[in-house]
């Protein structure tokens, strides 16, 4: 997946690019409005990750420009502004997601993957990871072609894991993905543990390998 990151904070951009490149994406980064316009005019991107507050312009204008040029790129806004109006405005002009800083890299990656499925496969794509096959539209999961009945949260967990396979996913990252902003962490960790335990046993029951690894009590990794 070819991604353009537009963010004036260089150290932020470095971390994002590092994570995404590691996950097999092709990433380019620009740090201001003018450079990003140039990039957009010249190249095609699957997805554009854009900060709204840039030193020489507004990220919203970049989005409008992308949409006008009828490019099919997906757009994710990353902003320090956490207000409903900003979110609504961003989504109104055609952004796919709005992430508030600080966000988890795994979260951004999961959104990128879902945009990728939407753009490149019209959402009909199957997610395949070894013996696991997911049908995102039907919310169905098959292990060795046998269907596994998962609850909504377990399904979300599995998609999140596969989107960020081989990466460490922290508990707080998981909690925020599953329950959003206003969840006290201490409580949610117990629930994460329960959900992961259930998900793991359901997958193992159908003969799936044990992919979900606990990493020193800090988080989880979906890997063999």
């Amino acid at each position, binding site marked *: 997946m070819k991604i353009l990151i537009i963010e004036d904070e260089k150290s932020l951009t470095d971390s994002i690019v590092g994570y995404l490149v590691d996950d097999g994406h092709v990433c380019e980064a620009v740090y201001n409005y003018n450079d990003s316009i140039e990039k957009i005019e010249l190249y095609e991107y699957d997805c554009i990750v854009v900060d709204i507050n840039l030193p020489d312009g507004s990220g919203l204008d970049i989005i409008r420009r992308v949409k006008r040029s009828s490019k099919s790129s997906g757009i994710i806004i990353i902003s320090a502004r956490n207000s409903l109006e900003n979110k609504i405005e961003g989504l109104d002009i055609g952004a796919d997601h709005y992430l508030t800083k600080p966000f988890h890299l795994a979260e951004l990656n999961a959104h990128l993957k879902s945009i990728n499925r939407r753009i490149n496969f019209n959402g009909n794509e199957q997610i395949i990871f070894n013996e696991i096959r997911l049908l995102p539209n039907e919310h169905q999961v098959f292990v060795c072609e046998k269907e596994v009945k998962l609850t909504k949260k377990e399904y979300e967990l599995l998609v999140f894991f596969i989107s960020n396979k081989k990466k460490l996913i922290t508990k707080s990252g998981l909690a925020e993905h599953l329950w959003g*902003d206003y969840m006290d962490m201490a409580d949610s960790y*117990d*629930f994460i543990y*329960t959900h992961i335990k259930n998900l793991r046993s359901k997958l193992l029951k159908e003969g799936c390998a044990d992919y979900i690894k606990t990493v020193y009590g800090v988080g989880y990794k979906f890997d063999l």
Partner: protein
Amino acid sequence: MKLLTKTSLNYLSVTLFVFMFAVILFYFLLRHQVNQNINIELEKRKSSITNQLLSAHSSVYTPPNQNEKVIITAMKAVHSPLLSFYDTLFYDNTAHKYIPFRQLGFIASFNNEKFYVQIFKSLEETDNLIVRIFMIMTALVFLIIIILLITVRHTSLSAWNVFYDTINKINNYDINSHNEFSLKTSEVKEFDDLNRVLLAMTQRIEKGYASMKEYTENASHELQTPLAIINLKMETLLQSSNLDENQFTVIAEAYEASNRLSKLNKTLLLLAKIENRQFPDSSAILPHIVIEHQLESLEDLIESKQIKVIKQFETNVVRLMNPYLAEILFANLIKNAIRHNLKGGELIIHITSQFVCFSNSGTDLGLDEDKLFERFYKLSTSPESIGLGLPIVKKICEIYGFKVSYSFANNLHNFKIDFDFKEQ
């Protein structure tokens, strides 16, 4: 005591005293005047009697009326005759009572003999007259006092009206209310001065308050980007595979802390925004739909704690609220009720047109209602909690004029939101 009552009372006591004194004085003056008149009349009669004596052959004359009575005594018999005017009493046989008379004693000469003559004039009628005049006068005085009092009260009331209006507005003044603070203009200079000073003062305070809030908001806003950098850097660090467990745990702990910090910052920012009324758009909200939606998204939490949810919903309740704030309000209360619930406990949600009440099972923790809604109030049993959930609930309630209250009864913690709460 109200100023108006006080001035009225002062005015009343002074006028009563002055008028009482005036009435008594008036009585004596009147009395004196009447006596003078009678004296003159008696003098006239004196000269006529003297003339009669001079031309009379006989002094025997007994009129039926006491007023006409003349007593003539030879001077020899009188040792010390009363001369000039005096008051005296005569017994009236027909009326069976003493009647006051004015008498004039004088000495008249007849055939070189001196006689002591006494003539009389009844005071009864004039006395009655005086009493009647006195009564009328008193009644009039009271009438005047009452009329004056009413007019004075009325005029003062209209003059003080502006002052009372000001007092009332200051009393209801709330720096968070965002209503414009305006005061009536008055014809009275002092009140106008007072209002001008008050307006200037509130404007200064509001300006200071606004800039402080702006600062808070900007500060937490600016914190977001460095926090994002810290978080992402640590996340990147955690992804590297060449860490041993010790290093890993240290980084993870720091990462957790910075996560908490950013969450805290986000929540504070939200609180600041609610306080700054940055959620102005309202639409019709059906509480039961918002609550159902929240319950659905927290289903797994409810299940894992085996909480029995009892819904007593009136489904026709509609409130005008910002949808986002409504969501936060009910979500916070539901999460609160789940978090502090017992395993296998109950969560009772009651919606009526007057209130929404969330009750959850629990043990009596002796919670202090006043402290419960304060920022960063935490129980020792939940040290991980940020302690901003209930303050946010309270703030949202304040915006919409609701009242949130806490009570503990029958092993249930109750959080109740009264919709139609009027400030007492």
